[in-house]
């Protein structure tokens, strides 16, 4: 009976001893964590104070390095966009070459040349014109000269002697005041490309 009591007493005391130590270790951990927290607060506070004192110098360093990276990054994006938009323009130019050389069957090229002349007439509103084009297109126009005159309501039209160095389309010059309208495929492509640049960029999802 007494041995049983002894054993219980020892067990209880050992348990109490262990409890003391566990609690002490826990408290020590809390003390350490709190000190670490305080140390971090001091460092952070000091950094803020230093930034306040030498802030302009630090900001200048930051802005110089980060600003340069941002500028170069934006330049890189712009170059990437231009590369894609140039690919679109190159492809469109290929299609125009196909059209001018009769490889596209969905458009009547001779009819298109007449429309380009009519457009020029609507812009210049004169009575007499000289029309220049490349050798191939001058050939088309010679064949359809009557149609051209008819489209211009009987206005006087002469074809230029010297072929123009162009992919296709027409250069229309007035006889009276020597006004010229370049309605060539290249000129029209440049104009259309400038006009549609944003729309194309959005369509491709590169903006």
């Amino acid at each position, binding site marked *: 009976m007494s041995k049983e009591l002894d054993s219980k007493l020892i067990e209880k005391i050992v348990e109490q001893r262990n409890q003391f130590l566990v609690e002490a270790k826990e408290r*020590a951990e809390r003390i350490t964590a709190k000190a670490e927290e305080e140390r971090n607060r001091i460092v952070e506070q000091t950094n803020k104070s*230093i930034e306040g004192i030498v802030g302009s110098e630090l900001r200048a360093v930051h802005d110089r390095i980060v600003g340069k990276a941002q500028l170069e990054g934006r330049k890189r994006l712009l170059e990437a966009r231009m590369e894609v938009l140039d690919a679109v323009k190159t492809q469109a130019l290929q299609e125009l070459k196909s059209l001018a050389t009769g490889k596209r069957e969905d458009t009547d090229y001779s009819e298109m040349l007449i429309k380009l002349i*009519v457009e020029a007439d609507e812009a210049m509103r004169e009575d007499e014109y000289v029309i220049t084009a490349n050798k191939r297109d001058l050939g088309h126009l010679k064949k359809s000269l009557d149609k051209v005159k008819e489209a211009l309501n009987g206005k006087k039209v002469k074809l230029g002697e010297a072929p123009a160095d162009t992919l296709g389309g027409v250069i229309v010059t007035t006889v009276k005041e020597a006004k010229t309208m370049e309605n060539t495929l290249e000129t029209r492509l440049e104009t259309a490309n400038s006009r549609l640049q944003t729309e194309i960029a959005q369509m491709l999802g*590169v903006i």
Partner: protein
Amino acid sequence: MEMKNILSLSGRLQRLLAKAEEEAEGIIKEAQDKADETVRVAKEEAEKRLIRAQYRTGLDEFLKDAEDEARKEAKRIEKEYAAKAKEIKAVPRGKIVEAAELLFKEVLPQ
């Protein structure tokens, strides 16, 4: 005889408890001393850094830290832009052709 044994055991156990209590206090004291030292060193270092900043001594050190930080940020920015540029260039060929057709039609007279 038995009573004597009990008293003797009780005394030993009380000593054991007292020793444990002492050990626990030691653990706490040691932690507290270390904590006090950590905070003291941090305060001392902070004070030194502040004085150096006020007198503009060791400015190079601050500038170097700021430069290192800025370079890290710049690298991150460069990576982000490079990824975006790569994404832009990866436009499928079909979409280029589709856009070119739109441009082509715009060139034609209406």
